[in-house]
């Protein structure tokens, strides 16, 4: 058969081959683009590291500075990790910062008044669990919106922190307690190990346990989860209890690091933790809260603060830039998901 006498089928074969090749290339390009889009935040993080590294190589990339950054973000990492758990089940917790403040206030007040360190620590952790339980009850069983419930508890918990501290700074804490926030182990600050431990536990539970799968199920579709036999209310309740416990642990580390407690020292971490989790959601293809993404988010916030401090950038400009980067990352991710769907 000559090329001049192609049948319609024959005519289609080269086209089919070409279009198959085109389709194959398109799929690869789409995959690469998708990878870029979903990995954009991680790429942005690496670019930040690279930029600061180029601008201040002898300072920013030094081991001492990396240790600095890890220490500075450790407390945020703990709070953001447990915030991730709450956001996995579809809620969020505005009281995490205030709970950290209250926990610090309780442990400090008890120790200043002569209580044994372990007893004081246990009491502070119990307070965190109680706050989490109240949040969990309000959201899971009374069906209040997480925003309203945790906003209310945040306000009350903050008030309780003022009551416990009587509005003053509590200091003069025992040396044994200070090791938690100021100690070193294997050359690294102890808070880093605490943060890594919490992150690993959260990751393990979310990915490898029935509890984690049920949390994901509730966050994905609570109706379907319920029909599948998951006790949705209990899962939500448990998530908030975890957040309360984690926040109180963060409060202990913060109090130890500062060797003092005030009624408000943990408050600024709430918004930062939520920002870190939202940044982390851009790392996930499905746009859901995830611990790895949260840690990337924490890393971004920490590197940004540290790098800009080293460059001598004004605090106010830092705050402006941080907000801008969060908006850019989340908007980019949202647009990417829109186009994909």
């Amino acid at each position: 058969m000559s090329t001049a006498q192609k049948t319609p089928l024959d005519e289609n074969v080269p086209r089919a081959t070409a279009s198959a090749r085109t389709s194959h290339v398109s799929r690869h390009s789409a995959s690469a683009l998708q990878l870029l889009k979903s990995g954009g935040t991680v790429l942005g993080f690496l670019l930040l590291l690279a930029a600061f590294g180029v601008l201040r190589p002898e300072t920013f990339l030094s081991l001492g500075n990396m240790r600095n950054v890890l220490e500075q973000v450790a407390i945020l990492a703990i709070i953001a990790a447990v915030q991730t758990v709450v956001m996995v089940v579809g809620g969020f917790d505005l009281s995490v910062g205030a709970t950290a403040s209250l926990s610090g206030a309780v442990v400090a007040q008890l120790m200043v008044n002569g209580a044994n360190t372990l007893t004081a620590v246990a009491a502070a952790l119990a307070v965190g669990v109680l706050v989490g339980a109240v949040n969990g009850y309000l959201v899971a069983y009374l069906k209040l919106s997480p925003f309203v419930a945790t906003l209310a508890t945040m306000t009350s918990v903050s008030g309780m922190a003022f009551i416990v501290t009587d509005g003053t700074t509590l200091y003069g804490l025992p040396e044994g307690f200070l090791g938690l926030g100021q100690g070193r182990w294997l050359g690294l600050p102890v808070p880093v190990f605490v943060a890594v431990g919490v992150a690993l536990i959260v990751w393990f539970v979310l990915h490898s346990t029935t509890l984690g799968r049920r949390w994901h199920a509730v966050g994905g579709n609570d109706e379907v989860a319920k029909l599948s036999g998951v006790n949705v209310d209990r899962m939500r309740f448990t998530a908030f209890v975890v957040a309360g416990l984690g926040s109180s642990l963060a409060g202990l580390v913060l109090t130890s690091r500062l060797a003092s407690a005030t009624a408000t020292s943990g408050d600024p971490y709430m918004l930062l933790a939520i920002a870190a989790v939202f940044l982390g959601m851009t790392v996930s293809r499905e746009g859901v809260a995830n611990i790895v993404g949260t840690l990337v988010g924490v890393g971004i916030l920490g590197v940004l603060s540290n790098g800009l401090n080293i460059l001598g950038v004004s605090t106010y400009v830092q705050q402006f830039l941080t907000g801008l980067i969060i908006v850019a990352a989340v908007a980019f991710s949202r647009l990417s998901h829109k186009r994909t769907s």
Partner: protein
Amino acid sequence: MKRLIAALGLLAALLLTGCSGSNAESATSGGGTPEQPEVAVITGSYGTPAAKYAIDAFEELGTGKGWKVTVSDTDFDFNQVNSLMQDAALRKVDAIVLGFPTPEQITVGLKAANDAEVPVYVIDGGTAPMEGVTLNVTSDSGQLAEISAQALLDAMGGPGKVLVIGHDPHPGIRLRTAEAIEYLEAAGAQIVDVKQVREPASSQGEALNFTNDFLQAHQDQDDLDGVWAGWDAAAMGVVQSLNSAGRTEVPVTGIDATDQAVAEIKKDGPFTATVFQDWDAIVGRLAEVMEADFAGTDPGTNFEEKPGVLVTEDNAETFNP
């Protein structure tokens, strides 16, 4: 069962609201009496140790004089300070006392008080006489800056490289920071950086992080000779960082003379000096003038400054505020 619990909770909330409502009504209808003037203390800064001390001291003084003193804190919401001033003016209280206000932000509340002819007194409000204010008694910010800056120069052994920690949203800290910088530079010091703390609530943590990052960026021991901080909480963060980095030869000064700061000065570490703002003298003077005013004697001036007292290793042991 859940609905019952929710209903009970709602009922409790309503009852509490009703109780507080009736208290407000009695405050509206009753007001003060010549025998028991009503004084509304309004502040946004009760969460800071210095402000809390001063306001508690004033409340105790006023109650001791037989005044009916109420204290309202807006937790750094200075817009709400205006609202509370309007409420107090509406209630025709005998006096409003503002604790640590930012003068530029209280214009609305001040106007309401002036229109209602309710005198407004101020504890540590800004750094200059305020129109519409009957009397503002404040610390002499210039003097605070001067003595703390001089203490730092003395501790450094002369002019050197100084890191400054400030918080400009607070007018007192802003003024004393500017004056300290001027004083230090006039003495030949070099200001290597001025860091602004964003949140008063996290002063110590922020200052700790700043100083860590600064030391990291300037590894040379000659890069820093001293640190001037506008208030003690920030100074504590700096001290922690210096102790941690083993840079205990770098002196730090603060202002406020909090118990924690004085205790730290006694340890003979980097924390060299702080300045005590004599809140007892400030609120005492204010109460004295108010009492005379209630008895019909107008204040002679609407602005008074009280000097601070330097606290160093030399007098920390015997210092008793």
